[in-house]
């Protein structure tokens, strides 16, 4: 199967005067993928999404969405995407049903399909019997699900969701991600930006972006195993501060960091082994329990990636 990518960007760059918001970004995203767009605030996530939606003109580079050039064919792009902007963007002074009807009209959903699509959106958002409620009176989670419902009324093959779950309670976030996966099973390609690290786990692949640059684009599993440069172990020791200092300079230790009341240590090959750690620390006056391997959280990985990338950029 050799389908063309649904989202393709090459050297995509956006400058605002002298500030470079997005810096030569390359992306290739295939049909049905759920891509998590992750990075600190101001990293360029929203700017990238807006360029892909033809809302901002790229300063340099190219991007194609659903086969259309975002710079030259903005209307064709817009007809094939669903977009949820960062700020809640439905009409608060309209009811649930009126919002859906409005977007149905704007997206030119065939009239004969409207009843069915609206019913689907309402049940998806869990808003049965609230069809005639003014949207501004709805709770956050409902609003977000309704916004998603409005964005997919015209069955777009590509969805751009800019921090759709920010400010939404955890259970509603979970529910929201279930919806995204249901859509992905139907072949919808989705780019979701988020600053919740735990949500990265729900994505097929993660695009990590920092200071306008794409640092990594890989599945959560690949990121964990490849990017740490070794195996991650957790160890309890007292005093924590001296243990950190000792291990940071010990042979074979790639990285050591305090994680709660314990230490996280990444061990490379050809130095200390996990079994040697309590003895090694004991010799230097630190009491330590035995180290056991842990699954690195994606947060560990991101911190590692972002800091090593920044170091690399300083050197370069």
């Amino acid at each position, binding site marked *: 199967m050799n389908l063309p990518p649904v989202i393709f960007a090459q050297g995509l760059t956006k400058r605002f005067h002298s500030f470079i918001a997005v810096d030569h970004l390359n992306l290739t995203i295939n049909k049905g993928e759920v891509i998590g767009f992750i990075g600190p605030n101001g990293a360029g996530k929203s700017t990238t999404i807006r360029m892909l939606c033809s*809302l901002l003109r790229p300063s340099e580079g190219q991007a194609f969405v659903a086969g259309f050039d975002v710079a030259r064919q*903005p209307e064709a792009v817009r007809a094939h995407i669903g*977009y949820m*902007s960062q700020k809640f963007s439905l*009409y608060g002074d*309209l009811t649930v049903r009126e919002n859906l009807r409005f977007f149905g*009209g704007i997206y030119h959903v065939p009239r004969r399909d409207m009843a069915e699509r609206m019913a689907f959106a309402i049940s998806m958002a869990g808003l049965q019997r609230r069809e005639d409620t003014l949207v501004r009176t709805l709770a956050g989670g409902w609003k977000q699900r309704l916004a998603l419902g409005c964005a997919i009324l015209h069955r777009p093959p590509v969805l751009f969701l800019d921090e759709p779950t920010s400010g939404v309670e955890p259970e509603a976030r979970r529910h929201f991600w279930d919806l995204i996966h249901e859509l992905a099973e139907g072949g919808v390609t989705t780019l979701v930006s988020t600053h919740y690290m735990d949500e990265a786990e729900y994505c097929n692949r993660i695009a990590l972006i920092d200071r306008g640059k794409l640092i990594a684009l890989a599945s959560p599993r690949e990121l964990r195993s490849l990017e740490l440069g070794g195996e991650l172990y957790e160890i309890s020791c007292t005093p924590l501060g001296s243990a950190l200092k000792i291990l940071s300079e010990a042979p074979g230790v790639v990285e050591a960091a305090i994680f709660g009341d314990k230490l996280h240590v990444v061990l490379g090959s050809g130095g200390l082994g996990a079994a040697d750690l309590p003895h090694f620390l004991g010799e230097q006056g630190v009491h330590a329990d035995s180290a056991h391997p842990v699954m690195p959280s994606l947060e560990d990985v991101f911190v590692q990636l972002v800091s090593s990338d920044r170091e690399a950029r300083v050197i370069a």
Partner: protein
Amino acid sequence: MNVRRLYALAFKETLQVWRDPRSLAIALLMPLMQMGMLGYGVSLDIKHVPLCVFDQEHSQASRSIVDSFVSSGWFLISRTLDRQPDLRNVMDRGDCNAAIIIPANFSRTLAATGTASIQAVFDATDVNTTNIAMGYAQGAIAQANAELDAQWAASHGVLPYLVNQVDLEPSTWFNETLDSRNFIIPGVVAVILALVGAQLTSLTISREWERGTMEQLISTPVTALEVMLGKLIPYFVVGLIDAGFCLAAAVFWFHVPFRGNVVTLFVTSLLFLIVVLGIGYLISVHIRSQLGASQIALLVTMLPTTLLSGYTFPIDQMPAPIQALSLAVYPRYYVSILRAIFLKGSNLADLWIPLLGLSVYAIVIIWLAARAFHKRLD
């Protein structure tokens, strides 16, 4: 252009106006209030000028002079004086705006020489009122003269027309009663529509920016032209309702004579609304906050409309550069159109000059408005 999208936009906009107390107040309450305030407040007529009389003679001739002032209907005797120095006090207190002083030898001088003077004093702090009151006083004196002539002629056995050789019989067309309200009210309607129309549409695009709904709207395949038309259509309906209300109030409440036909009125009002709503929309596209947009709209429409539209201050009395400037003040065309339709019963062909002015304006505004809105954030 897609009718379905146009309908969706227009319907949504209607719901929003209907549910927004501020828009609704501008749409329905503002014309009502302005019609009341401007309709009643602005009048250039001066009736019942308070008059102070200092008659030093109390003769038949002096009383007939005073009578001719009173019977003219323009003056009302508010004080009679016994001493000349009191006049200053009476004027200072504002008890009268005009005074006549008849000298003690009035009828003797008149009988001896055939001519005599009386003095009239006016409080000229309000120049306009004074000018008009002076005109009234001259009218009253002319009337008194005619009567004196007739008496003189009768007593000398001569026919009076030999004395009064030229008599002017003024005939006031189109506003026979010379009621300034008939002249001002049609202008007031134009001013109200200019203000209200621009206020209404100045909120339409800025509201979307302010509430964050614009980004969603421009991410859809809707076109800029559809946005413009879809948003303006509901305000056209509101504008027509307002126009209908104001014009009906002019005819049925203020009793301004309506001599034209309704179709002419409708066509010209529609054209004016295009300009007015288009200007508000243009402002709305460029100012992204509702408050800012509505203030700019007020500033842009209020001063030129009240000062340079000719609705109270006659344009042909202005200095040439200001007159040239007033060509750019679109309400002036509608003011003159409305006056002509109401009072003269003019038809579209008669009105071709102001219609041309309005049409040029409408085309330019719509052209600018259609190009102003871009579906981009940068």
